[in-house]
């Protein structure tokens, strides 16, 4: 095994995971809340991957999130598959959908790309309202937590939490690997200077498509995990507001950082929870955060911290 120095980012990551592992033993944070954060953090991270490393903003990522949620909810409830297989099915379907959508959208740039992804997601939303297996407005409810590998019962809150934490940690490890891999380096060069990358002989569209597909699969993982944690897959998962929320989380946390999406997800979900009983305040606060981020805080919270400390986060 190669011995290499752990970067500050690696060290911080280990500390964070360790802290998260202690959550079930304290009484301050509700573990369901934390698990919800994991799901949305993965979702936001998938968008971050696309935006921060490939420079593509998608407005339709809820389609993959929702697809992951519906498919895994369905196979776990109707076919009785175990959770890890359920997640796998969700991710696979989201990935395939991502490849198809990506192939259609990649050829366009900027706002046109964003609008095509939005339009495709709206089609998925429409299909979700019509197709019988999704149960329309009711959604797929009562998804069983099942038994991991047929051995560990996940209906206990603590077991479910650790399962979710492991999935979360693996997802982020994978993202980190992708970013620092040769593929990630090429993506970065494409984002920074596309014409030069083309002149160097890289098939830019193919790289973008791969990035998009990976991002879709990751979003699907977030959705699948969510359907397991909350035991429900519903139309909200595919609605365009959910795509918008993910964009907000990504920006709030900091585009291009690893932990940004987690911070963004934690803050937004927390905010929505607290303000939910106060009428329109939740929307007002969400909007205000968007405005503040764009005007003054463009690096996002984690991005800002990383900038000040001159390290990568």
């Amino acid at each position, binding site marked *: 095994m190669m011995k290499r120095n752990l970067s500050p980012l690696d060290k911080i990551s280990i500390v964070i995971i360790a802290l998260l592992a202690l959550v079930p033993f304290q009484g301050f944070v509700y573990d369901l809340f934390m698990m919800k954060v994991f799901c949305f953090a993965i979702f936001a991270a998938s968008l971050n991957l696309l935006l921060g490393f490939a420079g593509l903003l998608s407005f339709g990522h809820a389609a993959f999130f929702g697809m992951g949620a519906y498919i895994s909810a369905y196979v776990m409830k109707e076919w009785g598959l175990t959770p890890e297989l359920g997640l796998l099915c969700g991710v696979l379907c989201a990935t395939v959908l991502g490849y198809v959508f990506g192939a*259609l959208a990649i050829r366009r740039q900027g*706002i046109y790309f964003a609008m095509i992804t939005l339009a495709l997601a*709206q*089609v998925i*939303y429409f299909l979700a309202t019509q197709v019988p297996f999704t149960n329309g407005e009711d959604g797929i409810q009562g998804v069983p937590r099942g038994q991991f590998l047929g051995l560990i019962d996940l209906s206990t809150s603590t077991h479910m939490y650790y399962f979710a934490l492991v999935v979360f940690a693996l997802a982020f490890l994978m993202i980190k690997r992708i970013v620092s891999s040769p593929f990630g380096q090429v993506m970065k060069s494409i984002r920074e200077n596309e014409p030069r990358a083309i002149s160097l002989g890289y098939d830019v569209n193919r790289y973008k498509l791969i990035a998009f597909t990976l991002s879709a699969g990751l979003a699907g993982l977030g959705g699948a995990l969510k359907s397991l944690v909350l035991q429900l897959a519903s139309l909200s998962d595919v609605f365009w507001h959910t795509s918008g929320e993910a964009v907000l989380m990504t920006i709030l946390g900091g585009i291009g950082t690893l932990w940004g999406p987690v911070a963004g997800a934690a803050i937004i979900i927390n905010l929505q929870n607290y303000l939910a009983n106060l*009428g329109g305040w939740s929307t007002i606060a969400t909007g205000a955060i*968007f405005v503040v981020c*764009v*005007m003054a805080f463009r690096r996002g919270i984690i991005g800002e911290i990383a900038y000040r400390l001159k390290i990568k986060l």
Partner: protein
Amino acid sequence: MFELLGITPQALVSQLLIGLINGSFYALLSLGLAVIFGLLNVINFTHGAQYMLGAMVAWIGLTQVGHWIGMPEFQLNYFVALFLAPLIVGLFSIVIEKTMLKRLYHLDHLYGLLLTFGLALVIEGMFRHWFGALGNSYPVPELLQGGFRVGELFLPYYRLWVVFLALLVCFATWFFIERTSLGSLLRAGTENPRLLQALGVNVPLIVTLTYGAGCALAAFAGVMAAPIYQVTAVMGSNLIIVVFAVVVIGGMGSIAGAIVTGLGLGVVEGLTKVFYPQASSVSIFVIMIIVLLIKPAGLFGRSN
């Protein structure tokens, strides 16, 4: 033949007419958006909220202002609102542009989109908080009530008024931008602001006024919508992505494109409501996908 499709020719024609009416409304709404994007390169997501503000100002003028100034009988009627609401909303939008939007011009237009999206949420949240979710009813002005029968169909005067006014304003805007010298100044400002500035034209002022005018167009559409749709805080957010789709399909820089697409969309949506009504909300997006695949810059767009 028509009977096989399950619909009589008269019914089909009446649906097409309704479609055209709605289409002219979409055209008016997308016009403001197209102007702002075409001339400023700003994707104004606040458009839906500004549309709602127009309707709200009209409603407040009609029902609330009297109470505020102690003269309950006092009313700002519909026709006054048609002028006043766009003015108020336009001024408000100018403030937004001068304090916030201006600072983002040098960045990727993503940021403008995100800012305007955030502002839309704030504005809508505030109105939802004050006025609740069900909203308020705004009556059709007395002068325009009633209608006439064309065969089986009853055409309300008000809807015809909407078509007339919308097409008038659309044409006037198009004419102003594409055919007058002031309009050509605006267009020059988009293509080469520095040169224009060097020639002594106050470009920032023009930009600000254009933004205000585009938003005023949204508010104008809002006042026109108030007697037809319920005046609620979320009336804009329901429409905004459809309007965006219209502008994108028409070609983001093109005024004529927005108008033609708006009308076309109204007709397509009308037909969908007859043959496959559940899909009426999604028909525009399917069209957008098809159009963008064939013509990447939209039907009338200029690719740059």
